[in-house]
């Protein structure tokens, strides 16, 4: 991927539907020892930078997994189960096989060999306990829509037509898909957060109490791009797999395990992804089916799921959240009990942390957290943007709002009174926590001080106006990753790692960091990613990619610079005779003395002198041990709703999201992430819900006409503020990821605003007009 399409555009801080303010965009370069050196150089880091892959995407040059054409391509179509649980009794593919152009119909009975042990199917993102689902493995039906056959044909239309001719008989068994029906049988899963004090006793004794149950339904990710794999089989039995995935190396290892292949025999590519939101963290069944097809036909095979089949993979688990908050009359919390009951499958125990977030946000001497799972006859639930926090913090922040009402306290004031400067779960200080600043700047930008605290007190014509707010919190993670830099004598820099860019802007920030560190214009940087043969990189999740990859690039760049210095020292009249690695920088295509850049030698001259065409270095990132610190991003979200009470129409007319996430590498792409997250949060609050007919265990709105996400008309003004958050502890760049923090708290802010507007509390998401009406 060439970066010559990039335009550096420092003024372009405005994105669709929103504006992004970067308090720290200019002042982002911090005075750590390592960064002193870069101060004199052009700094792409911190500058709003357009996507380097933008032009390729909008012109169609960027090819996605389902778009790659190879000669002799075979097309697959998957047949899904129509019962939720049971066994396959008989599969009759005779009619399908008779269709001209149909090459084969694979089922569990005639497929190529697959591994017979659970370990082989356990990918990097698999839950620790349970037996991962094995696609097309045996006659057992674990969920409705599970693939039971793969039709392979010379063209897509034939495959799809023949797929409907495959007749499958089942012996159905009793199933359960309703969390409410199964909550009684939910079991406790261990979570790291320990209880503090005696929450039950403290709650009973508290001056002011609030206790309630909240509900979040199953939601599906609905990325624009469908799951797709194109598997190219070569005569020596090697496979090149183009896959829609958030982790090429994860899929590579998984396929090696499932098919007993040597690592060299499988390459997985995913140069572009049309959205993931977590759905692509685990290998999905289409990649296994496509490989089965390619192996059995010894030909290249493509399989693309259809939209309905996109509802047969992972999802945000429906969760019942119970909160019990006890406070002193002044608002200081005495007791927090947070209990979650979430959905998982019958075969794996997927869970994330819903319940511990209050320990990071609010001081309370007593706290108890319980996380339970209910096993349902559905696919295993999975990660969806800010898993655990999007749901758990919704409940926590709606409950805090209810507590504020009971206390007759301003909701922001309540949060400030409970503000915790330590992570109480771990009893650790934070590397940084500028949440107070988020509250202050968010409130100011929103105009919160003009809020009349009385519900139903604000109006605009026929509409009731409501202002609500909530806190957001997420983790600031960084993982081991490795990057390679290849410097060519002409100053061109290639930077590579096996990351995915799921649309977040990874290409762009990699180019920015490499350009800064190598002292070259960003147009001279080529970024390679999404290829399993590149240096190791974890799956793109948890908002950890930017920090992980950036520091690997810095490491690799430093090594390249070290090598240039080594060569330059041998040049006649070298200005670097006594220079140490830290004394030199790369800037404007030259190796120069830090602090005296006039003393420099062009990189080209150095390389000519050393008789080297390329300098190539691979480096793992390294971070100081920060296990004695809690690492989090924070936000404060303010929302205005306008409600036509008689009819029940709810409009989110304004939102301000003030985010503290360390230093922002690229305010433009980071701002996109937060704006998109706020839209996702509005969807959670008002629209999104996967509807299952529990009598059949079948999803009834498996399409994007009836599974509602917000459309343009639902989205108005969204303002994003990145507050200044210097962090000299977390990593050399002082940065944290921003892919998920933006959604956390949004649904609560909307729900709280609806309460403020109407005096009605709907705790069941999504807040549709019938639920509001029931309360009116």
């Amino acid at each position, binding site marked *: 991927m060439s970066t010559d399409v990039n335009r550096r555009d420092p003024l372009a801080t405005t994105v669709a539907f929103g504006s992004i303010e970067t308090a720290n965009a200019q002042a982002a370069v911090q005075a750590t020892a390592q960064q002193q050196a870069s101060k004199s150089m052009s700094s792409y880091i911190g500058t709003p930078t357009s996507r380097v892959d933008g032009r390729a995407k909008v012109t169609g040059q960027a090819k996605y997994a389902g778009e790659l054409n190879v000669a002799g391509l075979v097309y697959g179509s998957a047949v899904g189960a129509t019962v939720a649980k049971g066994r396959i009794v008989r599969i009759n593919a005779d009619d399908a096989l008779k269709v001209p152009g149909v090459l084969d119909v694979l089922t569990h009975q005639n497929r190529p060999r697959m591994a017979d042990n659970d370990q082989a199917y356990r990918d990097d993102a698999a839950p620790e306990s349970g037996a991962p689902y094995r696609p097309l493995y045996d006659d057992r039906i674990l969920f409705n829509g599970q693939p039971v056959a793969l039709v392979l044909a010379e063209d897509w239309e034939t495959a799809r037509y023949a797929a*409907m001719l495959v007749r499958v008989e089942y012996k159905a068994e009793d199933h359960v898909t309703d969390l409410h029906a199964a909550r009684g049988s939910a079991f406790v899963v261990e979570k790291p957060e320990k209880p503090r004090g005696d929450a039950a006793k403290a709650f009973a004794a508290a001056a002011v109490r609030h206790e309630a149950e909240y509900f979040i339904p199953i939601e599906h990710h609905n990325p624009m791009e469908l799951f797709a794999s194109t598997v190219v089989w070569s005569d020596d039995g090697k496979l090149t797999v183009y896959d829609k995935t958030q982790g090429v190396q994860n899929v590579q290892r998984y396929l090696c395990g499932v098919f007993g292949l040597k690592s060299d025999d499988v390459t997985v590519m995913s140069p572009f992804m049309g959205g993931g939101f977590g759905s692509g963290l685990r290998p999905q069944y289409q990649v296994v089916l496509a490989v089965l097809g390619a192996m059995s036909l010894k030909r290249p095979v493509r399989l693309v799921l259809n939209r309905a089949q996109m509802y047969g993979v992972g999802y945000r688990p429906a969760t019942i959240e119970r909160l019990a908050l006890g406070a002193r009359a002044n608002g200081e919390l005495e007791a927090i009990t947070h209990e979650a009951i979430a959905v998982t499958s019958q075969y794996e125990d997927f869970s994330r942390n819903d319940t511990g977030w209050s320990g990071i946000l609010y001081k309370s001497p007593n706290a108890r957290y319980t996380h339970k799972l209910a096993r349902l006859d559905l696919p295993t639930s999975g990660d969806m943007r800010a898993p655990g926090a999007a749901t758990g913090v919704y409940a926590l922040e709606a409950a805090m709002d209810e507590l504020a009402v009971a206390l007759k306290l301003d909701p922001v004031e309540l949060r400030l009174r409970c503000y915790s400067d330590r992570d109480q779960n771990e009893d650790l200080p934070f590397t940084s926590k500028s949440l107070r600043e988020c509250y202050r700047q968010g409130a100011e930008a929103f105009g919160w001080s003009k809020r009349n605290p009385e519900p139903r007190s604000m109006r605009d014509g026929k509409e009731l106006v409501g202002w609500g707010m909530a806190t957001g919190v997420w983790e600031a993670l960084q993982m081991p990753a490795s990057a390679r830099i290849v410097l060519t004598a002409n100053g061109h820099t290639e930077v590579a790692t096996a990351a995915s860019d799921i649309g977040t802007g990874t290409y762009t920030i990699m180019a920015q960091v490499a350009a800064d560190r190598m002292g070259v214009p960003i147009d001279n940087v080529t970024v390679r990613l999404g290829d399993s043969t590149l240096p190791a990189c974890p799956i793109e999740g948890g908002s950890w990619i930017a920090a992980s990859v950036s520091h690997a690039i810095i490491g690799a760049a430093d090594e390249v610079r070290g090598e240039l210095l080594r060569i330059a020292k041998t040049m006649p009249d070298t200005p670097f005779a006594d220079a140490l690695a830290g004394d030199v920088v790369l800037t404007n295509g030259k190796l120069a003395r830090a602090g005296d850049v006039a003393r420099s030698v062009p990189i080209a001259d150095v390389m000519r002198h050393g008789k080297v065409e390329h300098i190539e270095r691979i480096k793992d990132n390294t971070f100081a041990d920060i296990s004695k610190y809690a690492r989090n991003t924070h936000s404060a979200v303010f929302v205005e709703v*306008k409600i036509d009470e008689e009819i029940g129409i709810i*409009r989110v007319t304004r939102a301000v999201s003030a985010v503290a996430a360390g230093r922002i590498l690229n305010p433009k792409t980071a701002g996109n992430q937060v704006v998109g997250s706020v839209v996702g949060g509005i969807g959670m609050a*008002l629209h999104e819900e996967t509807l299952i*007919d529990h009598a059949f265990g*079948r999803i*009834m*709105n498996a399409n994007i006409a009836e599974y509602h996400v917000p459309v343009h008309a639902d989205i108005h003004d969204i303002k994003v503020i990145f507050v200044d958050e210097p962090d000299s502890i977390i990593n050399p760049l002082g940065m944290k990821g921003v892919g998920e923090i933006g959604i956390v708290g949004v649904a609560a802010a909307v729900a709280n605003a609806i309460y403020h507007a109407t005096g009605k509390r709907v705790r069941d998401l999504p807040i549709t007009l019938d639920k509001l*009406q029931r309360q009116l």
Partner: protein
Amino acid sequence: MIKFQYDRAADVTDAVRQIAADPEARFIAGGTNLIDLMKYQVERPPRLIDISRLPLTSVEETPGGGLRIGALVPNTDLAYHPLVEQRYPILSSAIMSGASQQLRNMASTGGNLVQRTRCFYFYDVTMACNKRQPGSGCAAIKGINRINAILGTSESCIATHPSDMCVALAVLDAKVHVTGLSGSREIAVVDFHRLPGDTPQIDNNLRRDEIITAIELPAQGFAANHSYLKIRDRLSYAFALVSVAAALELESGRIKTGRLALGGVAHKPWRSVEAEAALRGQAAGPETFARAAEIVLRDAKGFGHNDFKIDLARRAIVRTLTQAANATPQSQADKRIR
């Protein structure tokens, strides 16, 4: 999607001849509904007769002061047609409230009338559905029926007709012109769609051999006092939970003629002659409107998830009549309800 033969109709006569010869064939116009249904295997026509190139695309004034709209006029063109915007703004408004720009560009006037229900169970061929497979039962009655009907339902089917355009056509007393083997005839829009009864598989009164050629609007367009209010789960691009078309002819504050039709509540655009009679001669005010709403909904019946529609429809009727009376029709561009 099954394999099908594709033929083009040369003219209306040819179209009729072709469809009469093959009872399982289907006309295809914009294809925005039919192709979807074919992908879901709900419709499995072995043959498609493409009528999209027939010259039924004009909007012409009739001698009686009305308008004749060709069956293949795209929904977008119809909504933006100057004569429609001027004389029948309620029709423009209803069309603009539906679907998306891209769909409206493709969708035809005739196809909009004949589009099928969005009932979840109708779309899922693994489910019992009397409309799709007569005699198989109705899974929606005990299922997820939030979007289903509250008026005119039967034990066999509680589906709704999803069109917005047709609700406006119903209040305008439009007529459907159709041509079949035995010649042409007119069907009033209000008589075009059927109630499900025990034959829910038959959506409307179009005969197997008939093609819709045009819609005719009478002279009276209610341009002064009208409104189309659509209530849905998001602010655009969703089918109506309840929609109301109201058209009034006022004379010094009293209602000379009042028309009222509902969408999203029944197997057809729901007009209540009785409610309209109750409007006649009355003051255009809240009590009159509430009384009309009572009459419309007197026999309404919910099926669990859709119980809320009854009360919602009541409020929506009153609001829409108020908008119409005040000459402040709901704008489809403004997502705020007036």
